[in-house]
């Protein structure tokens, strides 16, 4: 990894790693910098190193002047012990994967280790009380955030007296639908997000901060704005595909926060919904932390954890048309539903359910996602 002349950037935190990384990489590449990155499906060490093997030359050389890598929180902490990043971006700490992490404070500790190993700049979320006073960081810190008045994100609570919000260099100032305005040290940037939701506004703001630190004096805000205005969504983050001649939206729900935010950001009217909770949800308890008021009716509930998902819906009096143990049969039945609107058919699925569905329907290229 030391061969990258412009160093290594690590993007980590509970949520938004894939979108932020994809946006930052697109901006940096648009400036003519050859950039190595890992696909979002390879953000743990094992997947990451297999990506390196696939991408490297026979002599082990990886392509690119810089590596911008998204990394799972625990694996990022292990990675930086071997490779110190020049820049790190700490996105957020939400209550997630508690079967693995036990307590949000332990996640914060992992991110602190990443920050302390960073050699040039730590880019942090000014609004997250877990991160805006992390301590022990000796290099420059640059903050991004959402302006007062924008919806607040439900970070893991610290229950401590809030510290003064650090000075924010990159701030999302307004969000109307998907139209976002970001204030930066280089001026104002206005563009349309690829997907709905304030969490995507946070990702885009963080991406601008990362790209500007990577590029330094070469950073061109106009070019960065154009890239963000045109970038397609990361697959399954509001991706829309035509199936059986009908549009279907695919939304990945990886944890309580992404389930909650994606439910809250569903359009006023949706078509039939399929909820698929796969084997990756080791402990489905977290499903019960989500406020389901936006979910009035579910057409199909399925996936390896179909029974837990169905119990959740039944105990909350949410009308459920079909409970299906056989996932592929459930996919076929859902895709066969004829729907003329209002709204479009929507799939909410966990990572394992996503992978299985994509393979089953032949969506093999994760980059093949159109912007709508």
């Amino acid at each position, binding site marked *: 990894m030391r061969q990258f002349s412009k160093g290594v950037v690590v993007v980590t935190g509970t949520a938004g790693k894939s979108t932020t990384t994809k946006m930052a990489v697109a901006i940096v590449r648009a400036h003519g910098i050859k950039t190595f990155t890992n696909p979002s499906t390879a953000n743990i060490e094992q997947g990451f190193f297999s990506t390196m093997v696939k991408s490297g030359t026979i002599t082990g050389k990886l392509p690119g002047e810089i590596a911008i890598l998204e990394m799972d929180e625990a694996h990022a902490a292990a990675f930086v012990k071997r490779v110190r990043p020049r820049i790190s971006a700490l996105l957020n700490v939400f209550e997630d994967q*508690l*079967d693995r992490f036990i*307590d949000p404070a332990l996640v914060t500790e992992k991110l602190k280790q990443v920050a302390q190993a960073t050699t040039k700049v730590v880019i942090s979320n000014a609004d997250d009380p877990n991160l805006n006073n992390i301590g022990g960081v000796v290099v420059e810190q640059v903050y991004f955030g959402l302006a007062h008045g924008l919806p607040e994100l439900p970070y*893991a609570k*610290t*229950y401590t007296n809030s510290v003064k919000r650090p000075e924010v260099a990159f701030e999302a100032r307004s969000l109307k639908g998907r139209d976002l305005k970001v204030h930066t040290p280089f001026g104002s940037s206005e563009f349309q997000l690829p997907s709905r939701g304030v969490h995507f506004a946070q990702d885009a703001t963080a991406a601008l901060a990362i790209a500007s630190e990577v590029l330094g004096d070469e950073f061109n805000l106009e070019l960065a704005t154009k890239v963000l205005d045109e970038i397609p969504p990361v697959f399954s983050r509001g991706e829309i595909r035509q199936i059986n001649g009908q549009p279907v939206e695919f939304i990945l729900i990886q944890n309580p926060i992404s389930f909650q935010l994606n439910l809250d950001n569903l359009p006023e009217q949706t078509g039939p919904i399929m909820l698929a909770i796969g084997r990756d949800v080791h*402990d489905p308890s*977290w499903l019960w*932390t989500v406020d389901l008021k936006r979910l009035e009716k579910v057409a199909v509930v399925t996936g390896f954890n179909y029974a837990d998902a169905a*119990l959740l819906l039944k105990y909350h009096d949410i009308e459920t048309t079909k409970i299906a143990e056989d996932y592929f049969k459930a996919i076929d039945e859902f895709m066969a539903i004829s729907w003329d609107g209002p709204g479009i058919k929507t799939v909410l699925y966990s990572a394992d359910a996503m992978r299985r569905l994509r393979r089953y329907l032949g969506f093999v290229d994760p980059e093949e996602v159109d912007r709508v």
Partner: protein
Amino acid sequence: MSRSLKFATLFPEELNLNGDQANLIILAKRLSWQQVSVDIHPINNSRILDANLVFVGHGSVAAWNAIETKEPELFSILAELVNGGANVFAVASGAVRLAKALGIEVNEAEHRSEFVSYEQVIGYLNSSSSFEPVVRVKNSILTLLHGPVLAKNPVFADQICIEAGWITKAPEGDLKKEIDELARASRKIALEH
């Protein structure tokens, strides 16, 4: 509804880290099938009102620090309630704290993060505390299991209601059958993980 009950839940915003508060929704739903209504009262201090059930959920380290700073006497009051014969249901870190207040020996053991089956109760154990996954003290139940334990364990849920005298027999009906069949499937899947 022919009868109404009052459930008190302590610091529900803080003590819901794994969806623990859902246990009250599950009890209330199952009781409603037998015409028993439930009012759930959030309690954010140690002045616990006279309730048919007091529930203590599971919180983060930060949440417990905040609660125990604000209400240092909370668990001695709860221990008195338990010893006085009240119905207290505590899960995970709430159960560990209550066990200590009741004088139950709680040692540190190797951390476990997995589904476990204990005396017909199946649930997720994510703890390094040593006592048994389900402990009964007078009319109270302490479980190391976290989250919506009762969703997977409808027999246990009904047993709590019967032993408390809120109902005389397990509920019946099509919805109950459907939900209990899903719980059976969920238990099977949990042990396959």
